[in-house]
């Protein structure tokens, strides 16, 4: 940390937001820039893409990365960079949707397991314990087998596959909050459980989850692309990143770029979201302490 940052921290103790902004580590700034790039790519891909994602050009098929095609072309001459940019929306939406499914399921199950009367909470808790014996990928595969391969089933499968882990985290967090002094105080003051839940338990149990959500979106993108890569998610003509990876498998011995760069996009998104998520978690912990 630089001297300037230290000075700002001490002088602006009255403004925690400013302190937070100035003392952000460089890795987080970098991660935020990566996320910003992919957010623009997801919302307005035409701003960032150099070619069409679907136009074929057989004369320049399988060209390595060069000035004209930054990341090379595929076997029918489509520009890989533009395909990755156009594929961002699908990949991120699946990740986001999966996280939303997981969070919705995990919130209901987690709160139930922590707050419901014993005869409800105990079975829910037991079921969560059983579901944790299934690895995430296997649970997701089970749902893909049921629903058939498509973007929607990918979203649901990855979401349901990651639900048990998040549910246990929410349960643990809720139990911690439930046993805290301020909840006891609020109960002692005569507030009903509903009031205590809305005013104290829910907000405090959710705060650490903000970081977890960022972390989870990155992981969901990794899982979903993995399933597409296995041929069990979005199918190849789509520029979704996992589908790009699957399509490139056939040419791996002659066109390394078709496998390296879509994978790099997945890695960049996953690492950036993880970094930001962990940073937010650390901040939240620091604030509650």
């Amino acid at each position, binding site marked *: 940390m630089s001297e300037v940052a230290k000075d700002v921290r001490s002088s602006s103790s009255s403004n925690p937001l400013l302190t937070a902004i100035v003392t952000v580590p460089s890795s987080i700034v970098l991660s935020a820039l990566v996320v910003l790039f992919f957010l623009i790519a997801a919302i307005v891909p035409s701003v960032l893409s150099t070619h069409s994602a679907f136009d074929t050009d057989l004369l320049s098929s399988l060209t390595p990365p060069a000035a004209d095609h930054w990341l090379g072309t595929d076997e029918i001459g489509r520009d890989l960079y533009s395909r990755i940019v156009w594929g961002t929306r699908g990949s991120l939406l699946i990740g986001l949707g999966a996280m939303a499914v997981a969070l919705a399921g995990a919130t209901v199950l987690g709160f139930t397991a922590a707050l419901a009367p014993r005869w409800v909470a105990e079975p829910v808790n037991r079921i969560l314990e059983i579901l944790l014996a299934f690895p995430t990928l296997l649970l997701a595969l089970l749902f893909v087998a049921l629903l058939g391969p498509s973007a929607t089933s990918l979203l649901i499968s990855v979401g349901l596959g990651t639900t048990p882990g998040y549910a246990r985290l929410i349960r643990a967090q809720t139990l911690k909050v439930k046993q805290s002094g301020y909840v006891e105080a609020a109960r002692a003051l005569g507030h009903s459980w509903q009031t205590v839940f809305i005013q104290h338990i829910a907000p405090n149990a959710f705060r650490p989850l903000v970081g977890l959500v960022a972390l989870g979106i990155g992981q969901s993108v990794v899982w979903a692309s993995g399933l597409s890569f296995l041929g069990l998610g979005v199918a190849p003509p789509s520029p979704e990143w996992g589908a790009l990876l699957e399509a490139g498998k056939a040419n791996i011995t002659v066109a390394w770029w078709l496998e390296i760069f879509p994978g790099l996009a997945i*890695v960049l998104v996953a690492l950036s979201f993880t970094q930001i998520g962990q940073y937010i978690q650390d901040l939240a912990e620091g604030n509650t302490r």
Partner: protein
Amino acid sequence: MAVDSSIIEAVPISRAIAQRHPAANILRTVLFRIGSAIFVLWGAVTITFIVLTILPGDRATILLNITSGQTIARTLEELAPINAMYGFDQPILTQYIHYVGALLQGDLGTSFELQRSVANIIGEQIAPTFTLAASALLLAWIFAVPWTLFTAGRGRRIGAFGSATETIMAGLPQYWIGILLLIIFAIGLRWFPVIGGTSFMNTVLPTVTLAIPLAGFLGQSIRSEFDRTMREPFVLSARARGMSGAGVRARHVLRHALIPGITLSGWAIGHLLSGTVLVETVFARPGLGAILVNAVSNKDFALVSGCVILNSFLYVVINLVLDTIYLVVDPRLRGAA
């Protein structure tokens, strides 16, 4: 749930014995752990059965379509013999009892697609997958322990570097590491074969692929315990007795730090077996992964559920064994059930 009530009854008697015999205390804890392991297994089987039974689309139709390679609607006359043969026309409870009964005898059912025993198919394919998972776990430990030993508890900068490396390793998707290694070392440098197989040379790259993220996770958990243990008074006292810094780290601190790593290994084995699915696809390596992917895309539910049950069985058994080893190794745990 007969399992649970028998445990509850057993507790007060054994507690009375335990006050005089510490060995009985261990036994009581082990029995409790076995009970909950059986419960988790029973639950996993039941959930798989429920998923199998409520699946959208008629099982007999799926079966007929897989075996004939068509996707068409079937008439009742066509479906009736299939339903009778597999017992799909019986009440759900009867089916469930048959299913669990067959499982207890090691019968995982018959594959919809291949029309062969699921247990046999898995038996043929499990060896390369198991070799891969076990060697990846071993290699991850070989990476993680020295790495932590050299970078943990050595000041903020080295520690931050070590933990950043672990975060990146743990965050890398297995399939992308595999692709990267395949392109560099098999296609580019030609050190390893490109075409998949199960020989030693074919196993090196898949093993490294699986070991890298796992070493990241292992390193993270060992490091935080290592840092915590370094601040314990007994470390200071060992140093005060004249023990060298390296000696304290290797003899005292590392021992404590390894415990969360061992716990993580139990979790990792379940996840490694499913992680092999992706890695086997990257390297076109024969094993359970290829079978499972094919079964999922063909809706061969008998084979899918067989793989799922096997995986949860291994997961539960390995964790049970680890828990028991802890009780023997770590005296602090003996009181708590």
